């Protein structure tokens, strides 16, 4: 075959992706079970998703949801913590537990021949955790120690300050880990009550994906979750009562870290919920602005200026109004200029340099042609499916994604920039050495708020 270095080879037609079938059923106790057959390797994953996350923490108990989920693998049913983890190890199991703002997700993957054992352990953790006092005290101590260690981690300091200043008393204003006074105050009774009233079958979705038939996967879930009855009346999760995030003007906050090797930046404002009708326009906007390597902000701050190892933006969409945020670690001396350039890009895309045809095509293509990658492994597919449930997305969401993105125009995306990026409301958080970045910051406009 003759090759031509004079031009890049044409791509030809995009391959067709067959979306995995999700079979949905509901058990008598209200628990939903979704199954996905995925035969590529002899593995199986069980994912339990509860739409209760750190935003469900009581106002005076930040960290309660996270410590509750952390207690689930400290012994359950007939097994103490050591026996549980021994059992997991013997089936080649991987346990993963994550807590976000809106959800708690527990996943166990194992060799397919141990599917029943894996689902049984997951059910015991969720429905019959022991919640022993000794374990609770140890887990709390470990979480307090983690808080101590985060004092030295610039990205964690920046994330925390950003959330606090942006959201104030709003349920998105704290980290899932919580605060020292709150962790000190939390009692085992509170954990136990949180578990009883939040972990109820009617709220839970279990997704089983892997090398077994739909019926076998469903049976593995029903056999262990079918007899689960709520232990108490479920407490309400009413987002309509949430306070509004504070209405604010442009702000600049500096957290002094003497001797820091670089400045950690967060720039952004309160954004929109996942269910915004403009979601697809927002992700195209984001990929052009700061969502991949060739985006405007990374090309400017990294490839042109050399200020950073990488800069990116995201619309962190959630059930409620999640943040829009730009993040980067930048050279100390260049901090003020990096902030100016970054904000300049946010202004330009909704003003003097709107989205171009080339950018639109690149952004749309990157998202749509890259879409099949999200459906390679059983666990990936299960995680994607969990998002559908968490955000109440339609059943045909996967199959409509590509055509919806491809229908967007430059005008749609620029309009999304105008509507959803608000330079006049930007909060800038800098974690860095005041003495190295200080004076130049005064040129940025807003007065500098020094925070601890």
């Amino acid at each position, binding site marked *: 075959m003759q090759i031509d270095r004079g031009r890049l080879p044409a791509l030809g037609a995009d391959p067709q*992706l067959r979306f995995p079938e999700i079979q949905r059923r509901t058990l008598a106790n209200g628990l939903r079970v979704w199954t996905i057959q995925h035969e590529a390797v002899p593995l199986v994953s069980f994912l339990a998703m509860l739409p209760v996350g750190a935003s469900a923490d009581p106002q005076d108990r930040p960290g309660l949801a996270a410590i509750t989920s952390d207690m689930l*693998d400290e012994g359950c049913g007939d097994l103490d913590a050591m026996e549980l983890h*021994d059992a997991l190890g013997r089936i*080649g199991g991987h346990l993963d537990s994550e807590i976000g703002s809106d959800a708690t997700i527990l996943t166990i993957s194992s060799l397919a021949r141990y599917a029943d054992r894996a689902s049984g352990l997951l059910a015991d953790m969720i429905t019959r955790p022991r919640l022993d006092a000794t374990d609770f005290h140890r887990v709390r101590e470990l979480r307090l120690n983690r808080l101590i260690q985060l004092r*030295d981690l610039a990205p964690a300091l920046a994330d925390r300050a950003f959330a606090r200043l942006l959201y104030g008393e709003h349920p998105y204003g704290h980290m899932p880990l919580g605060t020292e006074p709150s962790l000190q105050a939390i009692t085992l009774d509170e954990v136990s009550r949180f578990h009883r009233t939040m972990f109820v079958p009617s709220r839970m979705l279990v997704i089983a994906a892997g090398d077994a038939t739909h019926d076998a996967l469903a049976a593995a879930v029903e056999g262990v979750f079918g007899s689960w009855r709520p232990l108490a009346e479920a407490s309400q999760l009413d987002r309509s009562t949430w306070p509004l995030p504070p209405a604010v003007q442009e702000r600049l906050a500096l957290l002094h870290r003497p001797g820091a090797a670089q400045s950690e930046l967060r720039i952004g404002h309160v954004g929109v919920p996942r269910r915004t009708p403009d979601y697809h326009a927002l992700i195209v906007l984001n990929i052009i602005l700061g969502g991949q390597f060739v985006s405007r902000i990374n090309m400017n701050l990294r*490839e042109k200026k050399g200020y950073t190892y990488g800069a990116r933006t995201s619309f962190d969409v959630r059930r409620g109004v999640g943040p829009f945020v730009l993040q980067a670690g930048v050279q100390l001396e260049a901090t003020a200029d990096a902030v100016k350039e970054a904000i300049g890009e946010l202004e330009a895309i909704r003003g003097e340099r709107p989205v171009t045809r080339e950018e639109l095509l690149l952004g749309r293509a990157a998202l749509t042609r890259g879409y099949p*990658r999200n459906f*390679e492994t059983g666990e990936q597919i299960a995680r994607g499916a969990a998002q559908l449930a968490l955000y109440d997305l339609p059943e045909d969401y996967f199959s409509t994604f590509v055509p919806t993105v491809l229908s967007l125009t430059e005008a749609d995306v620029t309009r999304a920039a105008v509507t959803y990026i608000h330079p006049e409301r930007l909060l800038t958080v800098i974690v860095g050495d005041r003495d190295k970045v200080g004076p130049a910051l005064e040129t940025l406009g807003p007065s500098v708020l020094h925070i601890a």
Partner: protein
Amino acid sequence: MNIPYSRHTLENGLDVLVHEDHGCPIVAVNLWYHVGSKNETSGRTGFAHLFEHLMFEGSQHYDKGYFQPLQEAGALLNGSTNADRTNYWEVVPTNALELALWMESDRMGYLLPALTDAKFENQREVVLNERRQNYENRPYGFAGMALMAALYPSDHPYSWMTIGAAEDIRAARLDDVRAFFQTYYRPRNASLALAGDVDTERAIDLAASYFGELDAGDTPPAVQATAPPPNTTERRLLLEDRVELPRLYIVWHSPSMFGEEDAELDLVAEVLASGKTSRLYRSLVYDDRMATEIAASQNSRELCGYFQVVATAAPGRTLTELDRAIREAIATFVDEGPSGREIERCQAQAEANFVYRLQTVGGFGGKSDQLNAYNVFIGDPGFFERDLDRYRRVTAASMQRVARDRLAPERRVLLSVVPRGRRDLALAGSEPVAVS
């Protein structure tokens, strides 16, 4: 259990490995160059990694950056450098395989005409930023540098980290880049793996078309390194850092990758510190609560390896306590060996980990990356099953013997990382080391 593949070696020496997996309409393109920071010399460190960055800045026939056409085709792509190798990969939709091969072959053959001072200066800054972000600004970020410098003589290529010394990165010159490229970025020093939704014959044809025209180059010079002398007396070092809690690193010399006793040490690490049922987690974190975290690993590399245990002290607890508890746990293990339950569990876990590795065709650790690892390091891309056998063959007696022979207390290097101004928190008799 294995990764079925075909191998075809082009006339210029490039190995082409193809694995078909039609589960998802994607193909992984994975290219290894057998060069890493161990091919550098003292005083010129960090160069292999800096070079990797330049590979993403465009080549002669497409000089507008490497990412743009590939991201537009829906690709995910990245690269990485370690002591032994540099890898580059794209995961592309099936219809972009040829594009990825065009791009990879162009930078293998024609990087230098597109290289400019401006690109070089820019990426040198980017790499210095990477160093700040991942090492200088990160708690305990200098520990690895201190340990490697202590474990190996200063002319041994494992005595520096891949990221390199900041002053060496600043001193790098464009001419060095040219020489490095001509020496190491040659077909005969590379291995190309294609895995996924692809037909073997077509894949080999395409690879031959795009890479076949490139000059084989000379065989790169062998790495000059003598085996590091064994530690015969314990060494204690201390490093002050911006940290809240003191941390203890304990390191021993250990076998090389795939070498004798390498698999045993992997499983010893598993029994000691992987998961809540492990011995050290149980005694230091769960029962006594003297530590907030514990980890152990066998880090095997081409020339030789190191075995490491890391523990962070809980507030108010001392590194002396941690040291004693870890020493006792290892001594007990050496006396008794693993229990039947422990060995069953860690072998089940090891076998499952091999299955987990079969899930993805591309990216770091995907099937294409594994084929290349086996091909580059052992010359046998089909080593998967034999690799797994290494773990199946481990016995309680062999684990016990290897722990006794390899993890003796007098052969340890101990590094205490303590908060600035709190040298008193280090193990007694520790010597301060300077790292920057």
